[in-house]
């Protein structure tokens, strides 16, 4: 087991080095795009702990992102007693508030499972965006809240986009490390046991209530951090920034990344961003095929492309990017493990 630890640690270091070096090779705007991919990645790690490890399905994680985003917006625009808080410091607060909301949702989740739980969380995703409209003096209503554009703090000589990139991926790496520690230890084993059979887990002494609620709380914390970063990067929140479809995208990203693969989720995050913002590029690629002439600007074409690509990806990679990676490297690494 020891060599497996070192293998994973060195993999993590490689990833971190790649993350640190990448902005030197890409344009400033790509750095911004990758920052947003990083935010989806953070949210997906959280969702993976909940769905991949503890087996509870959530179709409402967009709502937790919204809680995080709105927390940041309110703290940095309205402030507390008139003191506006720097966007950077609102991130942990946003995470904690979303996490608390997650714990609250986790309580009814104890009594429900599978489809019913998914419906409850979906209800949250549907109803939550209505709240800012109800309290529009405080939360900005449909018009939303406009934040200041993110600026690098402490006089760092870098562009706002590079700053967002490093901030997001720095946080993402730390949270990835934390999630990794969590799932490879006692908690992870307990969560997996619950996923595989609640009865068996309970009879082996796993406290169902504690762990299931905890999984919700942690996962909502991750979503809250992601939402907060999203608000900072876009300098804007309104209910449409966190639509119902966002929750669905997250589940899609989780499936594409692989339910149990933390690093594979980067692929999932990349795909959600790419298909939302670059479906027209895909349309142009498809136009290379004979007898096809899609106008990427025609209404509906981007959504159609999104659907088609998704179906193709799920047909080809039913276990997600993580599953493919495991198949590719599996034989190699098992040899490593058995030798130790």
């Amino acid at each position, binding site marked *: 087991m020891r060599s497996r630890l070192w293998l994973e*640690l060195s993999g*993590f*270091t490689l990833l*971190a*080095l790649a*993350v*640190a070096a990448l*902005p*030197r090779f890409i*344009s*400033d*705007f790509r750095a*911004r795009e990758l920052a947003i991919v990083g935010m989806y990645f953070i949210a997906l790690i959280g969702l993976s702990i909940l769905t991949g490890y503890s087996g509870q399905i959530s179709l409402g994680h967009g709502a937790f992102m919204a809680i995080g985003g709105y927390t940041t917006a309110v703290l940095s625009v309205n402030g507390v007693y008139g003191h506006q808080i720097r966007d950077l410091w609102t991130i942990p607060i946003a995470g904690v508030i979303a996490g608390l909301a997650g714990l609250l949702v986790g309580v009814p989740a104890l009594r429900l499972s599978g489809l019913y739980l998914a419906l409850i969380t979906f209800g949250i995703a549907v109803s939550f*965006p209505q709240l800012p*409209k109800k309290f529009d003096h405080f939360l900005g*209503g*449909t*018009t*939303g809240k*406009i934040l*200041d*554009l993110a600026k*690098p703090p402490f006089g*760092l*000589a*870098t*562009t706002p*986009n*590079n*700053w967002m990139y*490093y*901030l997001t*991926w*720095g*946080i993402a*790496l*730390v949270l*990835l*490390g*934390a999630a*990794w*520690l969590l799932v490879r230890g006692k908690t992870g084993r307990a969560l997996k046991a619950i996923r595989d059979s609640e009865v068996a887990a309970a009879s082996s002494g796993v406290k169902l209530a504690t762990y299931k609620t905890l999984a919700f709380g942690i996962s909502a914390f991750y979503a809250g951090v992601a939402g907060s970063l999203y608000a900072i990067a*876009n*300098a*804007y*929140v*309104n*209910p*449409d*920034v966190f*639509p119902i479809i966002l929750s669905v995208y997250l589940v899609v990203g989780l499936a594409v990344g692989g339910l149990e693969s933390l690093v594979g989720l980067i692929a999932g995050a990349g795909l959600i961003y790419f298909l939302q*913002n670059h479906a*027209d590029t895909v349309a142009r690629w498809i136009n290379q095929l004979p007898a096809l002439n899609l*106008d990427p*600007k*025609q*209404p*509906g074409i*981007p*959504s159609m492309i999104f659907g088609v690509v998704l179906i193709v990806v799920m047909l080809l990679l039913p276990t997600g990017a993580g599953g493919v990676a495991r198949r590719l490297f599996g034989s190699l690494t098992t040899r490593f493990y058995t030798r130790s």
Partner: protein
Amino acid sequence: MRVIFVCAVVAAVAVTSAGARPVATPGVSATEIRLGSSVPLSGEAAIAGNVARGIAAYFKYVNDKGGVFGRKITFTYLDDGYDPGRAVNNTIRLIQQEQVLAVFSSLGTSNNLAVRKLLNDAKVPQLYVASGATTFGRDYKKYPWTLGYIPPYSEEGELYGRYVVKNIKKPKIAVLYQNDDYGRDLLGGLKRGLGSKVKSIVASVGYDPTSADVQPQVTQLKASKANVLMVFAFGKFSLQAFNAVSRLAWKPQIFVNDVSSASALMAIVPQSAANGAISIVFGKDPAAPLWRNDKGIKLFQSILRKYGSSVNSRDLQDGYFTAGMATAYTMVDTLKKAGKNPTRQSVMNAATHLDEKGNPFVLPGIVIHTTPSSRFPLTQVRLQRWSANAWHPFGKLITARPG
């Protein structure tokens, strides 16, 4: 613990290693001027995205004729689905990746409000905003890089108010309005126009721009027994309002705000409700019989046929395309005025010193005029009435210039 430590160190190293980057050059090269826009090509307001397709066709036509001082205009328009969050993302993409000289004719009140601050902070012109919210022309001291185009909604509302006072005996007015700056501006203007008769508004109901259907609101309004209905609603909501009026067999005098009065929309709603509806007009409507042989409309149709992408016969009758071309015409004028080597500043100067006569896509006699302290380019309109499947303008040109 060790792992968290490693992660933290790596993150810290990553942040501090970030290097400086060169400042972006704003969208003008020896051969090219880059402009960009964020518009709905999908979602409930998708039909209005045709404005951008009209603009794109017109710029291609101008490029074919040699461009502006030898430079071709590259026009990038991105879909935001009428969602302000995506408009922000698009606008950042336009400034940073497409490196546009100016953001031009982005559509929607909330969408433009969402990006106004960041465009002004970055000193990028936000030109000829496709929204009549009064704030875009009024608050230039705070947002000097922003400029509207179409008549301000508040003045439009005021015109309807004045018309009601003058022409309708014992009016009882019901108002359906979109609950944002766009709808509220129209409602506020209407109240001003009614003056002492403001009490004749017997009911006003707002709807949220993300709602599914406005039939409940219309039902509520009908219950007020009003004989006048103001439809200050956009896109599909306006359609739904007409449908609901017809379904409820209600017969009020309808006023429909300009941005929803496209013939393409009016032709597909139940005519029992649409007939007799009143609106304002400033652009030539390619579907109106009045302009069938007009030079401007002929030009519009020939440009769209030649340069438009996947254009069908309905598009040739679609007022959103003409509106786009009208704006594009003014934009080309602005670029010419901005000099042989335009900068963001010189474009802004040109845009605030407009005196454009003879734009072929707007009503004859309209002068598109701005000064640095009067930033409402288009403030002359006529009233029009819908009958026999077409709009018919009536009365003289009237001014809708604020204050």
